[in-house]
């Protein structure tokens, strides 16, 4: 680079803090003559000093920088900024290099770029202005990520939609009435989270003011919005949900009540706020490394995108209201989903046929002890649909949806029980297979499966893009096989068999319903008028079901611990050492039978077995019956 591309002589105006750059500037490698000047000295005779100045290097706090920007309007000099060590945002927005010698060279270059200056109520805005609350977006400059997150979370709990009247200038000349929890004017498009929303649509020299309005339906919705913002790719040009975007050379923002306005992180003025662009009013030295000059010089187009903001009747309802935790939804907004759910809740001929076929398949698979056949039955089973519809009905207190869903589920249950019972009665051979036994001891773990599957089912149903995952949900929760086992219990005239299997089905039914209800609520399908009665009833039933499930789980744990302990027991009977292996405790109603392998070196005789029995009764329980398989050590 030739020497002529640098200024030959430069005035360096600084504050106390900025004085640290005097020496590096004086020692610049280019040979530019530097004249340091403290801001206090400049203030005494600004006109005399600045009259013939072409370029000034400055260093100091943001207030000082704005003061110098003000002087530059009057005296038309360009500015090279040397940011203080903590002014990372400024360094970033100017694309400055990291090391000081390179920054000095950048500041001394004779190639300043013109950029816009925004004046809001006659105050200079360099980065952003914020009105109201936009958690995570409206943080002061130089806020750490952790601080930003903490402040954002604190602000989330008291978000309200405030009415805003916005009028634009330029060609559009539009009056807009809406509500938002906060709005942010973004000038610098690189360093803040807010700027990520519009980074591909704006620049500091497009002659436009970029106004972002945030109007979430709920706190959950806002959290989702911020999350999407964080993971948003650079190329993403779509606006996030709950966000409005206005781009105009002139914007006036009015509120019902006077609201404070922060400009560049400092309380500066109040509403009404009138902002206008002074196009290319300031010339600043930028770094060159990744600086896109073409984009910087391109003029912007006016834009008004407020589809996601409340308007009309919605505005009247929303304004001045605290934002709820969960999103409410009108049926019109999700028409397609509600049509599908209502259809699922109705009894169709295909429901009856599928229910019959899946039960026949499940019952046969259970008798065959074939997991693959049973999985086939799970996939055929049509019960998940009405259960998810029931969940939505409960959430929205839609009595017709609830009644229809319950009717359909009840019919499905009756079909399954009858089919399995009839098949069992006519089966000549009725073994209790492993697949049946696996459904006779429901525990809280099954409830966890049901709850997870219910949440997954509701989530999957809500987004047609992932509808194919419903098959996985059906397999996970397996509604028809427990019903088939319960039906087999009826066919066998075995109430315990029926009861345990039906408990598993009930667990699935209640778990799915509750989880799906909650999931629909989180996703945002609550009605505007809330009723907690339905959820409370399901929750109460869930609590009731949890008791036997917990007891069964506890019993299984105790049994396993008992079996494991037994595998560490040894008996010394009549001089013979007996090693216990593979203990299995079976509950045969009145008596517990412990089936064990006994490993012994010696032949066991009747006396030995009598002594073993005596020891077992003495040390353990007289009720415990042992069935032993003796294995001899060669």
């Amino acid at each position: 680079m030739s020497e002529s591309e640098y200024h030959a002589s430069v005035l360096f105006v600084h504050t106390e803090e900025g004085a640290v750059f005097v020496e590096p500037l004086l020692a610049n490698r280019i040979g530019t003559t530097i004249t340091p000047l403290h801001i206090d000295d400049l203030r005494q005779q600004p006109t005399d000093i600045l009259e013939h100045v072409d370029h000034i290097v400055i260093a100091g706090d943001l207030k000082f920088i704005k003061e110098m920007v003000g002087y530059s309007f009057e005296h038309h000099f360009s500015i090279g900024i040397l940011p203080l060590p903590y002014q990372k945002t400024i360094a970033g927005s100017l694309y400055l290099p990291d090391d000081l010698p390179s920054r000095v060279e950048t500041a001394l270059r004779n190639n300043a770029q013109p950029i816009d200056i925004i004046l809001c109520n006659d105050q200079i805005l360099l980065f952003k202005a914020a009105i109201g609350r936009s958690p995570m977006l409206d943080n002061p400059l130089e806020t750490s990520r952790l601080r930003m997150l903490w402040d954002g979370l604190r602000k989330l709990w008291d978000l309200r939609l405030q009415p805003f009247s916005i009028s634009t200038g330029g060609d559009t000349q539009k009056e807009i009435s809406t509500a938002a929890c906060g709005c942010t004017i973004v000038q610098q498009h690189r360093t803040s989270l807010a700027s990520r929303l519009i980074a591909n649509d704006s620049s500091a020299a497009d002659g436009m003011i970029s106004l972002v309005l945030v109007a979430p339906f709920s706190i959950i919705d806002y959290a989702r919005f911020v999350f999407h913002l964080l993971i948003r790719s650079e190329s993403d040009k779509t606006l996030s949900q709950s966000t409005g975007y206005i781009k105009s050379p002139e914007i006036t923002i009015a509120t019902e009540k006077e609201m404070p306005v922060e400009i560049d992180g400092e309380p500066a003025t109040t509403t009404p706020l009138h902002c206008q662009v002074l196009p290319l009013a300031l010339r600043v030295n930028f770094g060159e490394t990744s600086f896109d000059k073409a984009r910087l010089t391109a003029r912007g187009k006016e834009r008004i995108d407020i589809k996601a903001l409340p308007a009309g009747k919605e505005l009247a309802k929303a304004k001045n209201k605290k934002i709820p935790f969960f999103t409410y939804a009108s049926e019109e907004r999700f028409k397609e989903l509600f049509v599908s759910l209502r259809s699922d809740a109705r009894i169709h001929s295909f429901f009856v046929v599928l229910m019959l076929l899946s039960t026949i398949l499940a019952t046969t698979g259970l008798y065959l002890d074939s997991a693959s056949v049973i999985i086939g039955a799970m996939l055929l089973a049509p019960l998940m649909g009405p259960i998810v519809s029931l969940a939505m009905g409960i959430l929205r207190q839609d009595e017709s949806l609830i009644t229809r869903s319950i009717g359909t589920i009840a019919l499905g249950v009756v079909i399954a029980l009858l089919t399995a019972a009839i098949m069992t009665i006519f089966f000549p051979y009725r073994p209790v297979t492993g697949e049946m036994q696996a459904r006779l001891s429901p525990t809280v773990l099954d409830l966890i499966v049901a709850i997870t599957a219910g949440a997954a089912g509701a989530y999957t149903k809500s987004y047609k893009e992932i509808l194919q995952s419903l098959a996985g949900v059906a397999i996970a929760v397996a509604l028809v096989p427990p019903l088939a086992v319960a039906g087999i219990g009826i066919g066998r005239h075995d109430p315990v068999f029926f009861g345990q299997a039906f408990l598993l089905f009930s667990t699935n039914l209640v778990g799915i319903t509750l989880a799906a209800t909650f999931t629909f609520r989180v996703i945002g399908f609550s009605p505007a008028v809330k009723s907690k009665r339905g959820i409370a009833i399901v929750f109460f039933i869930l609590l009731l079901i949890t008791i036997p499930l917990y007891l069964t789980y506890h019993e299984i744990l105790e049994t396993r611990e008992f079996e494991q302990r037994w595998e560490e027991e040894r008996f010394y009977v009549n001089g013979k050492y007996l090693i216990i292996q593979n203990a299995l405790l079976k509950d045969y109603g009145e008596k517990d039978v412990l089936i064990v392998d006994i490993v012994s070196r010696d032949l066991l005789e009747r006396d030995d077995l009598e002594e073993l029995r005596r020891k077992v009764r003495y040390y353990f329980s007289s009720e415990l019956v042992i069935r032993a398989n003796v294995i001899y050590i060669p």
Partner: protein
Amino acid sequence: MPKVLYNLLLIFFIFTGGCEQPSSPSQPNGSVVRIAIVAPLSGPDQKSGENVVSGAQTNLTMFPYLGDGTKVELVAEDNGGTKEGTLSALKRIHEQKDIAGVLLMAKSDIILPIVPLADHYQIPILALIATHPDITEGNDFIAQLGFDDIYQGAIAALYIRDEMLIDRVAVFSDPGNVHYSYLAREFMRKFSSVGGEVARHLTVDPAQIDLRVVLEQLREDEVQVLYLAVNPENVLQIAKAAREISWNPDMMGSDGLLSTIFLQYGEDIGFVNGMMATDFYSTNLPSTEYGRRVIGKFKKLYSERGTTYTALASEGTSILQQAIDRCETKTDRNCVNTTLRDTDEFEGLFGKISIHRDGKAERPIFVNIIKDGKLEFLVKVY
């Protein structure tokens, strides 16, 4: 009964576990009966003796009265860890008629010479740690709380043979000690009877043999396990010598090994890490309700760590108390002796204990592995 009341009672029954509550402390009736504990409160085994007294005291703190309100007190008599001291203590106790029974913390070689005199004194004696089978022979007044060496030796042999599937062992024993020599003999008899080979039987006298040379020979002979029927001091010498020659064979000791090393040779406890030992207890097994209460109380009362000796003393005190409680005249020594020998299904710290008419105890034996100063459970043999 009104239905509501019935339901309330049912709920109360469920929440109280529906099980028997511990009986509330009896009202004191002013009478006192004493239990003597004879233990080494001086001499080299002093720490073990003090540990035993702590265990007995723990039990008495929990159950200070008998069912009829008679207060139970403990009289500690020092035997100095010697035969003479024990005999002298028994003579003193014999003359104190309010002492109903004796807990004797003495090794087998100290008790065996006293056996012929037991019937003369006619005072019920519960031997806490002595495991020689002859202690209960030829007298009607000495009972054992622990299993005997026939049982202990056999279990050690069978565990090594049938569970570890080991063919060749070497046995160290101490011919000067009746307990260890008997134990070694029983071990070898059982191990040979199940097809195992005792490659070498060695007596330990460090003054006469170089343990490193002996162990080097055993390594060359491909001996797989060393059975150590020797006192804890000798066990440490063998373990140190094995480490010196960089040999790490499986080793198994006997009851009370870890407790003695912990109390008397604490700084050397690392040498027995990984060694197996038969014992009355295990550190990591769930204890009974009684066990939980005793362990909790001991921790509250004492800063020291409980050992096998503490546990035996606590169980022994409780068993003797129950035996006394079953007699109408609490100081009737003949009655106490009879009821002591009729202890059935006493809920000990880790399971049931019975003392039969012949004075022998029926209780499980634990095969443990010593790990970081604790007895980690391997198997429990009934």
